Every structure is written in C-alpha cells, then in structure tokens.
C-alpha cells in the first residue's frame, strides 16, 4: 500500500534493526562519523567562545552541542540508515568537482538561452533507464541530475526508467546522464545503489 519507489525499505515505518551482525560494525562507524559531522555543524552555528569567554559558559555550550548532535544523529540514523558499503571519499571528491563544474555549466547554459533574443529552446522528453538500485542512491541521482545542464527528472515511466525533461534534446543528454551515474555509482562503492 505504500510507495514502491523505495522497495529496499520496509513500507511505512522504517525498521532496520533486522540487519543483524553484518551491519553492526559499519553502522556504528557511520553513526560516529555522522555524529562528528553534526557536532561540527553545531560548532559552526554556535561559534562557542567568540562572545562568551567564561569557562562554565563554554562548557555548557559544548554539552548542549553534544546533546544536539546526539539527537540529530539518532534521527538521521532512523531516517537514513547507513549503507552497507561505506562511501569512497576519493570518488566523492571527484564527484564533487564534477558536480560543481557541471552545475556552473548548467547555470551558464540556462542564462545564455534566457538572454538570447531568439530563445533557442528545443524541449523534449527522454526516458533514461537507471541502473542504480531504487532507494537513496537513485533519489540522489535524481536530485543531482536536476541541477545538471538541461535535464530535469519529472517522473518514473511504467518500466521503471526515469523520465527527463530536457531543455535541448539535440544535446548529448543521455551520455551526460550516464557519466553522472557512473561517477555516483563509484561514490557508493561501485555496486550502485544501497542494497
């Protein structure tokens, strides 16, 4: 009865404690990494010590920060269970560079078309059969490609392919999508998806 967009999850209420011992070690590691990240975000929000230099104030700041980070980590683990395989950080860095460069290209491309008096648009649709497993990986792919030049995911076709709206169907859109997908799959440990 629930959405089949995310078949890798149990429907409705998420339960992920049934993974058993195999998932225990990576998830503990993931929890630690996320907790550290959230605490870093807290530090950057609160900037402890910048205007309240006294020691008890600083200690209170840090304690509240730890509590907040713990709460955020707990919610994050429940909403987004860590993938069985860890992320590859080298691939992530490469992906980030690619993403930033391509999103700049996307902005310039749209701006060029908008300012051009002839309005050079050739919009159309394209079905792209994604190889990433359904779930967070595919959702991330949709989010990333919605910021890539000339593509915007508008839905899922009957056969499971992602449907893209393209600003200009003469561009090699599918090749670009395939490159994004390959890079993203490598970030998630080559297997593709979060199964």
């Amino acid at each position, binding site marked *: 009865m629930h959405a089949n967009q995310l078949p890798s999850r149990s429907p409705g209420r998420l339960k992920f404690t049934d993974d058993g011992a195999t998932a225990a070690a990576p998830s503990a590691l993931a929890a630690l990494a996320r907790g550290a990240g959230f605490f870093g*975000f807290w*530090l*950057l*929000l609160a*900037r402890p010590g*910048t205007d309240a230099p006294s020691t008890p104030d600083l200690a209170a700041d840090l304690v509240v920060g730890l509590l907040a980070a713990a709460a955020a980590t707990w919610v994050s683990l429940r909403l987004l269970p860590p993938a069985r395989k860890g992320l590859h950080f080298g691939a992530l860095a490469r992906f980030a560079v690619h993403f930033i460069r391509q*999103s*700049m290209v*996307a*902005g*310039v*491309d*749209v*701006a060029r*078309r*908008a*300012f051009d008096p002839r*309005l050079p*648009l*050739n*919009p*159309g*649709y*394209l*079905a*792209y*059969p994604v*190889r990433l497993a359904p779930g967070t990986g595919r959702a991330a792919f*949709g*989010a*990333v490609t*919605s*910021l890539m*030049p*000339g593509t*915007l*995911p*508008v*839905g899922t*076709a*009957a*056969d499971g*392919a992602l*449907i893209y*709206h393209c*600003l200009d*169907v*003469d561009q*090699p*859109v*599918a*090749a670009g*999508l*395939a*490159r994004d*997908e*390959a890079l993203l799959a490598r970030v998630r440990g080559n297997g593709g998806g979060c199964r």
Partner: protein
Amino acid sequence: MSLALDLFTIVAVTLGAIFFLAGTVGLLRFPDTLTRLHALTKADNLGLGLVVLGLLPQTTAPFGWIGLIAVWLLALLSGATVGQLLAEAVRPPEWDQTRTPAASPDVPPNAPEASSHD
C-alpha cells in the same frame, strides 16, 4: 591585497546578480512550466553560489566561511527537491501510459545505451 579581495567580491557578487536576473528572465520568457523550472533551479543556484563566493573574503572567521557555504548547500538541496517536486506536479499525462516515449526524432528511444561504453 584588500583592494584585490574587494574587487573579487564585486565581480563575483555582480555575476551572481546577473544569474538571478537570468533566472527571472527565464521565468518570464520561457514558454511552459517545465522549461521555466529549468531556469529557476539552475540559474538561481549558481547565482546564490556566486554571491556566497563573493562574500567569502568579507567574512573573517573560518566559521563565517563554512556557514555561508552551508547556506549554499542547503539551498542546493532544496533547489533540487523543488525542481523535481514541481515537475512531478505538472508532469504531462502521456507519461503514465507510454512505456517507450517517443521523445523526439533526434533522440532514439534507446539513447541511454550510449552509457554502455562508459
């Protein structure tokens, strides 16, 4: 040095403002909702990114830098979500029936097979 940084700020913020203008122009000139959605999500996020980039030299602490970048990342996430959500809401109906879409003569239905040689 400070002059160079100020110049950098002026250039980046101006470029960012131009991309905001592009987003607006696209929103007004593009012919249908989906193409307008492209203009909105892509031009705006680049515009905000450039404004953030331009403001970096004007904020002193490293905290300020990361804070600005965090704002940009949050805006990126919402931009991506908004684009897809609104696209899903206005998606033309023919997609629900067709399996292999006849998109355009220029793109063969199996175009994604190009991915196999990646």
